[in-house]
């Protein structure tokens, strides 16, 4: 709504960059009937089947590339899946540090997401209360969203050091925008008539917030949460990649393996990051469906 006018040109860039724009949130806000296939099968399996199928497809393509497109001398560029697993999963020297790194990255992502959610919701709440605050604060959110993180990393390193705190900062910067924009959109989504209703009943500002604006915002907040969670994973891995001091994260391992051309561990690390992303996305998508379904009386089963 009004934040589009508040930002002018920059918002166009922000809009095209990710699925984080208000109009998108609008479509998801009215959706809760869930995936059609999921509703038909009526089970968790029904919903995860497409993802499993996609994973199997990737494995199949992987084999084809390894064996059909690559000659034996060049097969090290993409070792087949079973070889990757055989040389890594059974090897404690590889798997132990990798699991430790994964735990480290998950920790950064969770801390980053929590901070991003807290900052994003507070930011949106303040903007929803005063038009002037929205005019002043929204451009900063857009700048945060549009500035390439690469441009900031040197500065973050100088200020914060090169360990886990800097990784969290990167994670927050990358993950915070969907939380701000979706929450704000949600808080502004109550209709003018609904606001009139509250005015007629002489509702206090607090009642208006807790009984109208916040409940109306919940579907959008969960949409934002889902998007931010996905970005927090990316942010944590990018943070690992740049800030290598302290215990290594999975992004740090990616870099090490790449430099040493350790192809099998490199592929396992990639698989882990991909699975991490899929799992986080699925958890928050399920949470979204469940909460919104409960709240609006649409059955999720």
């Amino acid at each position, binding site marked *: 709504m009004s934040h589009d006018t508040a930002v002018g040109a920059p918002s166009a860039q922000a809009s095209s960059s990710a699925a984080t724009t208000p109009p998108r949130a609008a479509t998801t806000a009215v959706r809760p009937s869930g995936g059609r296939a999921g509703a038909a099968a009526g089970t968790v399996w029904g919903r995860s089947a497409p993802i499993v199928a996609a994973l199997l497809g990737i494995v199949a393509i992987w084999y084809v590339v390894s064996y059909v497109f690559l000659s034996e001398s060049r097969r090290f560029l993409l070792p087949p899946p079973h070889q990757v697993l055989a040389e890594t999963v059974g090897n404690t020297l590889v798997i132990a540090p990798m699991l430790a790194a994964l735990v480290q990255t998950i920790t950064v992502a969770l801390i980053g997401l929590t901070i991003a959610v807290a900052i994003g919701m507070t930011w949106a709440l303040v903007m929803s209360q005063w038009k002037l605050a929205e005019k002043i604060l929204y451009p900063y959110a857009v700048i945060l969203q549009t500035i390439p993180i690469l441009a900031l990393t040197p500065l973050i390193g100088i200020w914060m050091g090169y360990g886990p705190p800097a990784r969290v900062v990167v994670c927050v910067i990358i993950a915070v925008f969907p939380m701000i924009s979706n929450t704000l959109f949600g808080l502004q989504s109550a*209709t003018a008539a609904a606001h009139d209703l509250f005015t007629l009943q002489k509702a206090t500002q607090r009642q208006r917030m807790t*009984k109208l604006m916040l409940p109306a915002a919940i579907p959008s907040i969960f949409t934002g949460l889902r998007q931010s969670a996905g970005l927090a994973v990316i942010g944590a891995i990018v943070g690992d990649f740049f800030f290598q001091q302290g215990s290594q994260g999975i992004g740090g391992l990616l870099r090490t393996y790449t430099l040493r051309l350790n192809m099998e561990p490199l592929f396992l690390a990639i698989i882990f990051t991909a699975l991490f992303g899929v799992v986080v996305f699925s958890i928050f998508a399920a949470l979204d469906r469940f909460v919104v379904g409960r709240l609006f009386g649409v059955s999720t089963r």
Partner: protein
Amino acid sequence: MSTGTAAPKVTGPPPETTSSSDPATPTLAFRGVAKVFPTGTRALEDVSIDVRAGEFVSVVGPSGCGKSTLLRLAAGLDGATEGEVDVRASTTSFVFQEATLLEWRTARRNVELVGELAGVAAAERRRRAAEALELVGLAGFEDQHPRSLSGGMRMRVSIARALVAEPQLALFDEPFGALDEITRLKMQTELQRLFQLKGFAAMFITHSISEAVYLSSRVLVMSGRPGRIVDDIEVPWSYPRSPELRYEPEFGRIVGRLSHALEAHS
């Protein structure tokens, strides 16, 4: 309670003592009201209307002539630019064109909202909500969310929410505009029954002339923008009115006269 921006306007004792059942004092009075929006749009011009307890007054007029503006002034949601709007009702209810239900609340909790905002105790609130829902024929649907109700049922919830406050003045802004013809006729009968039962003063906006005639004791015709009252027609029949009334020749004559007035002034 008095709304508007003109300075000396509140005359007479406060609403608690000036009971709206006193037929001499109108529950709602517009006196020479004009409304100009900051954008420069002149929405209303020299509007004077009295609505008394037990009166059902409909307003018909071309689209954009200022009907919703009129209701917003009556509700105190906006102030008059000139003239005064005098409301002598301790409670005013508003029924919007859309049902305007809170989607995350069940039918019962939507009706309870009014009491919640006013600080009515939970048990009392619940009792009144159940009563109001029963009255609009929604007993058994209390725990449904708006999403699983039909358009007509949603509007019934909206009406129950308006009635639960026991209003002395009820304002309706094209409440049945979005309903199909059959549901609409049914809702008209229902509303008439509720009006008779509760005896509030009603102001009702509609685009349907026959709806206005069927429901109202008086029908006002507004001109195109800026809206003025150009005709004021008494509808003779007492309540309750049978749906068959719509086929009476006299009914047709009144509808005809209103149509002419509308055409002449739009």
